[in-house]
């Protein structure tokens, strides 16, 4: 956090000065570790074992916050007796189909919902055998999945052997400190110290926060990492409370915003799913899959969110008769995410590509595959501040140097359009804690520099003009699109008008034309519009709330009048959980939101994340769904049962509970189960994306070390906003690798000398920093060396101050099945002193390694790990 988010880290330092304990768990000793009370080096890719160990410690030492767990989580809920855990099936859960590599999740359901749950679970229904379908994960970003109803069976004694709590206990029983040592390389004393600190600092009087950066997600089990932290936080009662939570520190100014208003293939704004071919033929079919009338919570109003979105996009053309234009939306039927698209590019299925402030030639895993893919495009539009490597790969990419590509042979037509900077446009960023902050344009962009707002508005205008007289059905959506934004003097659309469209309006009645103040005002009859329901309220009372800048010193510590947080300006989600079931703060020290009996409403330091007049004692009539179905002690108001899910009966594609699997490339056999790696991982086996062998396959000794990638304070991601800046470039001018003195001795690496790092994909060179900050780990009876690579550099690019080989070139592409994120934080490599070969000698060098390791396209692709006896 100190490394990548130094200004955010001021709050950690302040907490530390007030007595907070800081623990840093990371393969790498960073600037954060330097400030921590305890630094715990772990083997990259082993975190679920570590988190599971903590869960086991909490459960076996009775350290959980019982009242919170019983009341606010699904610990008491009874699960189907058909469910079989990973422990019973050597690392698989019940329902696995080895042919498709997918689970039928029916048996994971709550008791009494087995059949219905499967039917109601879009993910499974939407998944096509043999194809890596797109459902799951992000699609459920704002909620749990639908349940047919909320009539769950509970045993609040937590003793029923099929209740979630008992399943959890059994599932994690083997995650002992000794097992943690065997998998993570963390000595038991050090591990137990972490457990003690975390549990001692949780409960009524205290809360513990878990903070991660997105390297935690970049695993083939990335979603389950976060789930692991969620289980800990729920068991300890650290969710919905001040000082608690699981805080994702995200690396881009509006990466949260670009998920909320998604430039993502499987989502529409506000975490509504993209419609699926054959399943969502009508709006009704679509809505029925998002919610059921019988379930609890605010997703039952999804029809109002969706119809308001369609009204925002298609205005008067969206009518009840035409399903509000639902048919104009394109349909998805598979994984259309980034890496699948890259592979499709290689296969000449994609002709045109837009790159918008992103530099995948450096920033994506397996950069070589990325660059090769782009050379298959017919046309490429790059919009950026600088001539990034993704714009110039045809001219000066690494493959030009090796002869694997020739400029004269690359038919890609490339348009580079200079972008406007943040000071040259109005608009909002949504920062990592869901806070929308408006930034005002300071100056006009120079020359041809333009904002994306300008570019896409005018592109849309040109396309509409060309199709104005078309009678084709496919063009109806574009021709009917609302695209009449007021223009500013400079000829670009007014960003405020776009934000107003996102907020939404009353379209009829006495308030016609007025802004909506809340998404609860949205209607499903077409009388309201709103481009992203969770952002409704950002224009409350017609005022741009995101532009509020009341100084922090003039308001409460929650600072509710600075910017605007979705939803409804709530700064902590699910904050009903900050009070006990009776509505009283768990402790005065941790009071945040509470029930004011006299006033008959919820009040506190934040906007209550609960129906404001619903008393804690309220119990709905059985069978009532929607918000009215939430009891007064159901704080998790977006969940179909009002409870937080320790165990996910559906919605996840790789298991209802996190289980330790080895990274796709690992030097070690999985010590927990026979199953080596995530059986549901998404793979792209092809010659451009080879995988190194892992046990029990032979050959892993050819790549004996673990390589991981990371960032430095001085640079920004793939470097497009830092390597062109002299003041930043001079602070970290060269690509380097970090190795321990022990590894340096083992391989003859010299400080400040050169090293070549080689994986199954390629070889790169880096200057060597030999440092005691890298700790060899004793894991599974052997010493594991880890090599760290900052990934900010690239080869080529126009005008960058510094350049160097790109760390991501050595990483492969295999994906988490839930969200299609790549497994790029733990790979197997070799390291040798000296510079890498150049020219055609480089691919030959890489090939020689592959030959020695016996790598073929099939290496590492077995879904179910063969037993060592060959059975």
């Amino acid at each position, binding site marked *: 956090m100190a490394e990548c*988010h130094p*200004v*955010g880290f001021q709050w950690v330092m302040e907490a530390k000065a007030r007595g907070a304990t800081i623990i840093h768990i990371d393969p790498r000793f960073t600037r954060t570790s330097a400030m921590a009370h305890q630094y715990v080096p772990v083997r990259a890719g082993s975190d679920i074992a570590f988190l599971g160990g903590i869960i086991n410690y909490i459960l076996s030492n009775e350290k959980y916050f019982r009242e919170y767990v019983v009341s606010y989580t699904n610990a008491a809920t009874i699960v189907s007796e058909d469910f079989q855990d990973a422990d019973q099936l050597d690392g698989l859960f019940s329902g696995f189909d080895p042919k498709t590599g997918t689970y039928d999740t029916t048996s994971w359901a709550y008791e009494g919902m087995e059949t219905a749950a499967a039917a109601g679970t879009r993910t499974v229904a939407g998944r096509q055998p043999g194809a890596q379908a797109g459902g799951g994960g992000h699609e459920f970003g704002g909620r749990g999945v639908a349940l047919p109803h909320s009539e769950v069976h509970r045993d609040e004694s937590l003793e029923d052997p099929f209740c979630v709590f008992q399943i959890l206990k059994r599932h994690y029983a083997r995650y002992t400190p000794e097992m943690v040592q065997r998998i993570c390389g963390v000595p038991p004393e050090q591990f137990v110290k972490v457990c003690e600190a975390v549990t001692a600092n949780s409960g009524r009087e205290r809360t513990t926060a878990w903070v991660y950066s997105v390297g935690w997600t970049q695993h083939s089990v990335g979603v389950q990492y976060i789930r692991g932290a969620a289980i800990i936080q729920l068991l300890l009662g650290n969710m919905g409370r001040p000082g608690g939570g699981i805080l994702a*520190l995200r690396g881009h*100014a509006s*990466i949260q915003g*670009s998920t909320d*208003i*998604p*430039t*993502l*293939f499987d989502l529409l704004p506000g975490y509504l799913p993209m419609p699926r*071919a054959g399943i969502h*033929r009508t709006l009704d079919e679509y809505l029925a899959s998002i919610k059921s009338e019988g379930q609890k919570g605010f997703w039952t109003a999804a029809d109002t969110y969706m119809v308001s979105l369609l009204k925002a*996009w298609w205005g008067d053309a969206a009518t009840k008769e035409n399903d509000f234009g639902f048919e104009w*939306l394109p*349909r998805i*039927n598979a994984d*259309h995410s*980034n890496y699948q698209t890259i592979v499709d590019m290689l296969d000449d299925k*994609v002709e*045109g*590509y837009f*790159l*918008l*402030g992103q530099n995948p030639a450096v920033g994506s895993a397996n950069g070589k595959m990325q660059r090769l893919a782009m050379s298959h495009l017919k*046309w490429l539009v790059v919009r950026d501040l*600088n001539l990034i490597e993704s714009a110039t790969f045809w*001219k000066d990419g690494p493959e030009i140097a090796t002869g694997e590509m020739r400029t004269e042979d*690359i038919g*890609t037509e*490339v*348009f*580079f*359009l*200079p972008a406007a900077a*943040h*000071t040259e446009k109005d608009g909002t*960023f949504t*920062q*990592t804690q869901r*806070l929308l902050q408006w*930034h*005002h344009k*300071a*100056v006009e962009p120079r*020359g041809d520099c333009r904002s994306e707002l300008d570019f896409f508005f005018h592109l849309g205008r040109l*396309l509409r003009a*060309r199709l104005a007289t078309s009678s084709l059905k*496919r063009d109806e*959506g574009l021709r009917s699109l609302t695209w009449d934004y007021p223009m500013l003097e400079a000829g670009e659309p007014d960003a405020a008008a776009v934000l107003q469209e996102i907020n939404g309006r009353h379209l009829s009645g006495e308030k016609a034309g007025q802004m909506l103040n809340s998404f609860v005002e949205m209607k499903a009859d077409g009388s309201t519009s709103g481009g992203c329901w969770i952002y409704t309220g950002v224009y409350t009372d017609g005022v741009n709330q995101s532009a509020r*800048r009341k100084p922090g010193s003039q*308001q409460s510590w929650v600072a509710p009048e*600075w910017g605007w947080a979705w939803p409804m300006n709530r700064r902590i989600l699910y904050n009903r959980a900050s009070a006990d079931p009776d509505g009283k703060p768990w402790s005065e020290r941790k009071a945040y939101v509470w029930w004011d009996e006299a006033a008959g409403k919820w009040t506190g330091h934040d906007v209550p994340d609960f129906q404001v007049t619903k008393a804690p004692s309220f119990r709905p009539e059985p069978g009532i769904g929607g918000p009215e179905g939430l009891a007064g002690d159901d704080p998790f108001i977006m969940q179909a049962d009002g409870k937080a899910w320790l165990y996910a009966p559906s919605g996840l594609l790789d298991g209802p509970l996190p289980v330790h699997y080895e990274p796709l490339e690992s030097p070690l056999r999985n010590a927990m189960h026979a199953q080596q790696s995530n059986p549901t991982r998404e793979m792209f086996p092809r010659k451009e994306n080879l995988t190194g062998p892992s046990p029990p396959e032979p050959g892993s000794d050819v790549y004996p070390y673990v390589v991981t990638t990371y960032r430095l304070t*001085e640079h920004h*991601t793939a470097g497009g*906003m830092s390597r*062109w800046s002299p*003041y*930043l470039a001079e602070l970290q001018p060269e690509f380097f690798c970090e190795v321990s003195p022990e590894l340096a001795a083992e391989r003859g690496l010299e400080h400040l000398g050169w090293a070549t790092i080689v994986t199954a994909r390629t070889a790169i060179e880096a200057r060597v920093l030999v440092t005691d900050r890298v700790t060899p780990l004793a894991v599974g009876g052997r010493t594991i060396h880890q090599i760290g690579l900052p990934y900010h550099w690239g080869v080529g690019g126009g005008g960058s101050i510094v350049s160097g080989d790109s760390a991501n070139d050595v990483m492969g592409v295999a994906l988490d099945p839930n969200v299609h994120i790549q497994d790029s934080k733990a790979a197997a490599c070799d390291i040798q002193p000296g510079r890498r070969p150049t020219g055609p000698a480089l691919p030959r060098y890489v090939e020689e390694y592959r030959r020695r390791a016996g790598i073929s396209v099939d290496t590492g692709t077995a879904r179910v790990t063969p037993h060592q006896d060959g059975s």
Partner: protein
Amino acid sequence: MRTEALTPRTRTADRVVKSICPYCAVGCGQRVYVKGERVIQIEGDPDSPISRGRLCPKGSASEQLVNNPGRVTTVKYRRPFGTDWEELPLDRAMEMIADRVLDTRERTWEDADGQGNALHRTLGIASLGGATLDNEENYLIKKLFSAIGVVQVENQARI
């Protein structure tokens, strides 16, 4: 002597514009000082309850980011099989891009799958980016691409 007459350039700025740091997602407040329609200084906004006026090295280098003399300010064009960049007027580039979008879309359009289920899309066009952009921009991107049937719209959130 010059030193005695020194006045900080923030004092003589024509205006101060409130902004937000464009690098990571902490969302630090920035004050952008403008003189003669040029940004002359960017520093932390002490009013921000998030950042309290502080900036990291990247945020502190924001002025260099926006005023970088090496920043490309004209459209660059590389024709198929070309060996170098060429200049191209922005308006012309926009027309050419619009032509290519429609051309590819026409060629790669899918009305329905093999079972007759509506697809209403093209897989011939893809887009990557958005995490560094404004919400309003992401909104127009998703809206326009959806309207023309482009589904392969992605950004850094998944990478």
